[in-house]
């Protein structure tokens, strides 16, 4: 039932606004609204109950194991939430003079410094509000760098075919054309193809390492050399930074610009799809182009750098300072971990993934890439099950929901047929991993013996499989009464 269907005309039990409506008669009649907006008219209790019940229809990290590959669904410590919501932070107007905003700015400055150290970059901007905006900032900086040198011919961005969809979409948004580079069966970028592809038109290469195939790019130094010798820059998509945090730094691998998904690696909540943060870091030569605002420290005081300070900046990406509430949560999380905790993130995320991969193999599953180490995630391909029992990766995913597990990422990366991309994260105990592998094994057995169970899944959730074709054809995007 929709909140609108709980509505009754004239009901409003909430003591949340002025009781009387002040007169608007001083405003011209033609500028006033003629009919009341059709919002629900419910009591506060009705609203509270409705949305509490809706929340219970969600799977979440707090309620289920959520091994959604490439999304790093780790525990979001509660203290990060409560401390980011202290009144001193919540009531801070974004245009408060810097001198009156020192507590917040100090946190942001510390966060910039810690991100520099963790990634090996020279400077960071916290402005981008999501991974995709971080990518935008990164590619826009690559563009600005080349143009600042009068190098106007670099119109092409290279992207491995295993990349996230945001990579090519971003390059196009920044005015570049995109060329895809093939990936070898062992998961590494096809270096020969890369050498063929580079030239004076190459602006840069966007690379995720470890890649979306869940393996570390072993030729990273050679790749960096090829790109740099061609005059291009190397972009690090930080989607999988969790796998290597504290073990190897993008800056040391030769990357010139990176974005870090703070909502993944640094555990800010995914919130049903955002807000995130895609903070960007750069090597020294790209520093002048960082998006604003950036926080600097001068004589023990913090202040925002402005366009006057940074005339070559690519500019602003948001009205104010990105998503400060998210940045505060990331900051608090990093202070919890400290330098020793960062390394442990990569270690235990990798331990969990390799353990599950070994278990998957023992239990008869086919791995997308066999005989290599997993990073923090790995891929099972269900192509044999699909062929033999006419069940799909989607059927496996839906059946997992019935058994109380959020499904891994399905059908991504696009290179692997019928795949499940599994990322357990470091915060899950062995017990949860074993439970999940038992469930997966049970489903494999069911696929052979009772495939109808998979086809009909899920059965235990608020709804069964939904008609997506109808949703797209008979568009119903808003309640119209």
């Amino acid at each position, binding site marked *: 039932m929709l909140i609108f269907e709980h509505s009754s005309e004239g009901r409003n039990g909430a003591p949340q606004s002025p009781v009387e409506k002040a007169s608007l008669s001083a405003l*011209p009649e033609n500028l006033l609204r003629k009919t009341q907006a059709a919002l629900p008219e419910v009591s506060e209790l009705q609203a509270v109950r409705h949305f509490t019940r809706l929340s219970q229809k969600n799977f*979440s990290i707090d309620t289920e194991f959520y091994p959604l590959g490439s999304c790093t669904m780790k525990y979001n410590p509660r203290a990060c939430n409560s401390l980011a919501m202290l009144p001193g932070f919540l009531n801070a107007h974004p245009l408060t003079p810097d001198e009156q905003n020192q507590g917040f700015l100090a946190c942001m400055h510390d966060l910039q410094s810690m991100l520099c150290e963790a990634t090996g970059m020279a400077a960071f901007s916290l402005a981008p509000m999501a991974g995709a905006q971080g990518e935008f900032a990164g590619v826009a900086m690559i563009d600005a760098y080349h143009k600042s040198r009068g190098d106007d011919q670099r119109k092409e961005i290279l992207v491995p075919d295993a990349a996230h969809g945001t990579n090519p*979409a971003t390059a196009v948004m920044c005015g570049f054309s995109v060329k895809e580079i093939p990936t070898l069966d062992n998961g590494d970028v096809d270096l020969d193809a890369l050498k063929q592809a580079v030239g004076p038109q190459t602006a840069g290469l966007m690379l995720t390492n470890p890649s979306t195939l869940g393996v570390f790019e072993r030729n990273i130094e050679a790749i960096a050399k090829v790109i740099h010798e061609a005059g291009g820059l190397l972009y690090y998509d930080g989607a999988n930074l969790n796998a290597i945090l504290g073990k190897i730094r993008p800056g040391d691998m030769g990357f010139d610009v990176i974005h870090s998904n703070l909502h993944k690696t640094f555990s800010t909540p995914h919130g049903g799809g955002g807000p995130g943060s895609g903070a960007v870091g750069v090597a020294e030569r790209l520093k002048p182009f960082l998006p604003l605002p950036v926080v600097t420290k001068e004589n023990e005081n913090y202040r925002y750098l402005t366009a006057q300070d940074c005339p070559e900046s690519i500019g602003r990406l948001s009205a104010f300072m990105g998503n400060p509430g998210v940045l505060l949560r990331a900051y608090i999380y990093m202070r*919890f971990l400290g330098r020793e905790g960062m390394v442990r993130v990569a270690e235990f995320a990798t331990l969990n993934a390799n353990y599950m991969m070994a278990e998957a193999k023992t239990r008869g599953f086919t791995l997308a890439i066999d005989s290599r180490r997993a990073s923090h995630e790995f891929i099972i391909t269900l192509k044999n099950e699909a062929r033999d029992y006419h069940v799909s990766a989607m059927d496996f995913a839906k059946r997992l929901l019935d058994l109380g597990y959020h499904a891994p990422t399905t059908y991504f990366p696009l290179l692997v047929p019928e795949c499940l991309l599994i990322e357990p994260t470091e915060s899950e105990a062995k017990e949860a991993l074993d439970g999940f592998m038992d469930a997966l094994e049970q489903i494999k057995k069911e696929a052979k013996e009772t495939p109808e169970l998979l086809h009909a899944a899920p059965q235990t959730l608020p709804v069964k499989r*939904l008609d997506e074709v109808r*949703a797209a054809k008979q568009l119903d995007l808003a309640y119209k009464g």
Partner: protein
Amino acid sequence: MPFIPHTETEITQMLNTIGADSIDDLFDEIPVHLRAAVMDAIPTGMNEMEIARLMKQRAELNTKALCFLGAGSYQHHIPSAVWEITTRGEFYSAYTPYQAEASQGTLQLTYEFQSMMTALTAMDVSNASMYDGASSLAEAILMAVRANRKSKSRKILIPTTVNPVYRQTAHTIVKGQQVELVDVPYDKASGTVNLEQIKQQADGDITAIVLQQPNFFGCLEAVDEITDWAHENNILVIAVVNPLVMSVINPPGEWGAEANKGADIACGDGQPLGAPMSAGGPYYGLLCCKQAYVRQMPGRIVGRTVDLDGKEGFVLTLQAREQHIRRSKATSNICTNQGLVVTASTIHMSIMGAKGLENTAAACFANNNKLVEKLTAIDGVNKCFSGSHFHETVLVFDEKSGQSAATVLAALMDKGILGGFNLSQDYPELGNAILVCTTEMRNDDDIEAYAKAMKEVLTSAVKNETLAETA
């Protein structure tokens, strides 16, 4: 270990299963000479008690001054229930509803959000939100370029009465796609754009015009007249609106004459509907459009459908527009929305209802009139523009005040008043002007306190000057 549950026994068991001697062995594909050293610049870890102390100290450093500052972020009352429910783990720690059956809570809520946004703006369709108001304007501009197929110029008119940081953000985001943003100056008397000035800039083929209502100065634009003119000239209208104010002001879907009614795209910042100011975010960008342009919409959209048994349910829809399907041909690179803030906002609107929002908006307006009346009664303080304004007003200090906007604001700050936004950098032509804002949260005592402080600041300034002259 913080947030890592493994016992020594389990680690050993797991390594045995893997066939590795140590955790470090799992990283043996990484070249040894590239391995990171100890990260000295990062402090060692803290426990929750220590972090709580640190964060409370830092939060205390921020000002507690009485806020009369708006300019795109507003201090409104938020019912306690809003964030209590929003931060339930099931909303807080879920992700994008890729598995629809396991995400009906987030999906239904998003559908309800879209419904509320279309109700407030009187537009046909809303998406599931963009990052913030400024970036939603940038996406609205790119969307207009795709949607207006008859226009080839990629030229967009933007009055300078649109929030300067929105214009800057739009510039950053659209410049890679050869979109030209053309400034339109405003009328110095009214603080709004007039059609004559627009026509002067509208030389040849124009793709779209942006109109902010209320505009950055808090003034109300003549949206009907401009919308009609735009549509007659095959120009799309992009509205930038404050959604709270739309509860009482003619919404973008109703702009212009009946025949070709409504802005084509509406965007804006959802912050006034349930998001705390929080140093600038997270907020969310609203983005609505006419039905005809829905396939040009960027970002996520939720649709209502049925399951195998014919039961109502909700899914992400029209995904063929998006980057994970279309890659380089997507409508935008956007992947996420601002889900959690949208959750808060949907609960906020449900609890407030249309009546609650109307009363809130009307109180903002009434309070601003009270404040402006009190402040302009002080010698040297004048209203800058003649037209109607909503809950923000431009005040200018004349020669009698003998003060720059910056010094007045700094002196007010010393008295615990965050007195407004200094306009002299973005609009030097206005002289020593500030933008003052009131919400429903400023009561008569607050307004009185501001007026008293202003009087003291200006009087002491005059006194000092007189003293200086005498000396």
